[in-house]
């Protein structure tokens, strides 16, 4: 299989109040078509920044991203993003939220044009995929956090992207809902075999879902520390894996990386420097 996405020597420097802040330095990663990759690391290590650079929402200071042999210069629907906070339009129903994306990607002027009828079926198909058919006409304010995130995933899937980018998609959900969402995502993956890059800080989530886990070193100047292949056979079942030695060993490797090799020393209260670094990412978002 050839590489679908190449992240090559990416540096990211944010202009900050106390001088420039180097978030990423020399990030290299190659992703094959159909792979499920997790980016894991401590908070503030720049894993979301990597995702945003791939999405085209940020421009890398040095280096670049190549998707399908073409350089990424701006955001686009071939790199659909599932944001942490659903980011649905609150004034539109679940159906209309997905429809907005579908009409933009497959509407007039598109090379992949669909008819009205086809679009309607496609929207419903994707909502059905995330088990949201029963609440298609509900607005985000009327459904739970998990359901909102489902709609967000349906919207991203409906763009028929080359690569699906997920920024801590289940981070804001409670543990049981999260497990349920992970199972749904695995089932969908089993059918569609999308290429996925997911940012997470949940070790179990990473091991359960991924083909490879990319572990990132702590910032500043974070980069790819280790890459772990997860060769557990699919379909995976969380309950039976809980007793599996293979799963346990892989999980232990990630934990070892995060809490041994890349232990983050963070005082609880007086971390003015640490938090200013942590904030470097969100402030740059606004810019």
């Amino acid at each position, binding site marked *: 299989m050839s590489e679908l996405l190449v992240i090559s020597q990416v540096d990211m420097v944010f202009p900050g109040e106390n001088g420039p802040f180097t978030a990423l330095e020399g990030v290299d990663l190659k992703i094959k078509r159909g792979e499920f990759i997790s980016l894991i690391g401590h908070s503030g290590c720049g894993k979301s920044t990597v995702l945003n650079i791939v999405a085209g929402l940020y421009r890398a200071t040095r280096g670049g991203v190549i998707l399908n042999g073409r350089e990424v210069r701006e955001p*686009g629907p071939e790199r659909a993003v599932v944001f942490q906070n659903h*980011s649905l339009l*609150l004034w539109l129903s679940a159906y209309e939220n997905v429809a907005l994306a579908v009409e933009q990607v497959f509407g007039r002027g598109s090379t992949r044009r669909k008819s009205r009828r086809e679009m309607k079926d496609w929207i419903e198909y994707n909502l059905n995929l995330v088990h949201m058919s029963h609440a298609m006409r509900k607005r985000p304010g009327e459904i739970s956090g998990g359901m909102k995130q489902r709609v967000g995933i349906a919207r991203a899937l409906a763009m028929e992207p080359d690569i699906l980018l997920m920024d801590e998609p289940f981070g804001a959900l409670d543990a049981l809902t999260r497990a349920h969402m992970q199972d749904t995502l695995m089932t969908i993956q089993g059918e569609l075999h999308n290429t996925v890059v997911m940012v997470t800080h949940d070790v179990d989530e990473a091991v359960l879902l991924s083909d490879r886990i990319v572990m990132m070193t702590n910032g500043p100047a974070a980069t790819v520390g280790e890459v772990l292949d997860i060769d557990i056979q699919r379909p995976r079942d969380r309950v039976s894996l809980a007793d599996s030695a293979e799963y346990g060993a892989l999980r232990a490797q990630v934990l070892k990386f995060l809490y041994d090799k890349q232990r983050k020393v963070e005082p609880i209260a007086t971390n003015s420097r640490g938090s200013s670094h942590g904030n470097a990412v969100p402030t740059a978002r606004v810019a």
Partner: protein
Amino acid sequence: MGIAKKMSAPLLGILLFLLFWSAAAQRIDTSLGEFPRPIAVLTQMSALYQEHRTERQKERAFYARQEIRNAQRAERDPNYQVKIRPYTGKETFIDQMGTSLLTVACGFLIGMVIAVPLGVLVGLSSLLNAACNPVIQMLKPVSPLAWLPLVTMVVSALYVTPDPVVPKAFLISMVTVTMCSLWPMLINTSVGVASVDQDLLNVSRVLRMGTLKHIRKIVLPASVPMIFTGMRLSLGVAWMVLIAAEMLSQNPGLGKFVWDEFQNGSSDSLSRIMVAVLVIGLIGFLLDRGMLLLQRWLSWDKAAAVR
């Protein structure tokens, strides 16, 4: 029980207010007699209504007489071109309410047509915002009374037609209302537009929406709650400004009514002014409620439209 309980506190409040008013009124002697008590005001209220009815009867009688006269003349002279002369009686209190409402509506709508699109532009561009903000902040607190002489002169200079569609006083009041009601709408719209969630802007970028579609599908709906808040504030300002503007420009509305009664200085004047004060307050309240209902009906964010 539910309704009785709900209504008892407001009714008690109104009752206490009336008691306090009566008690205070007895102690205030003006050159036009004692300050009007609630009963006197009530009497004048019905008197004003009676005047209105009498005036309408006179008007009907006038047109009836005219019609008969015209018919007679047409009978005598087949070449006679029928002319209808308009009735020129004085405006009643009810007519003046109508004039005021029309003036405020026109002034407010023109303000809205200017302020909302401008607010969207200012909110979209931080450069434009930086350029406009000082001017907006400086013009916002200017009293209508300061604008009025300028508006009067400008309207008088520019609005010169032999056959005016609307009276000059109406235009002057309306433009003054517009000048003062622009700012809350402008500021709230621009703040609403500027504070659209970054995630939603990212969605728009990922979908590669064009600028117009971006504004139509994301920016405008997202800032609708703020735009409505601005509109409610503006309508309140507009109504308040209007009374002052009408007083000085002699636009035949409630402001002119108050001014004329003040100049008139009869023993009923204070009671009649008090009627106007209550009616002005009531209309202002109803306008605000109306905006609130409109917001509840049109805006997706029901939580923003609670009070």
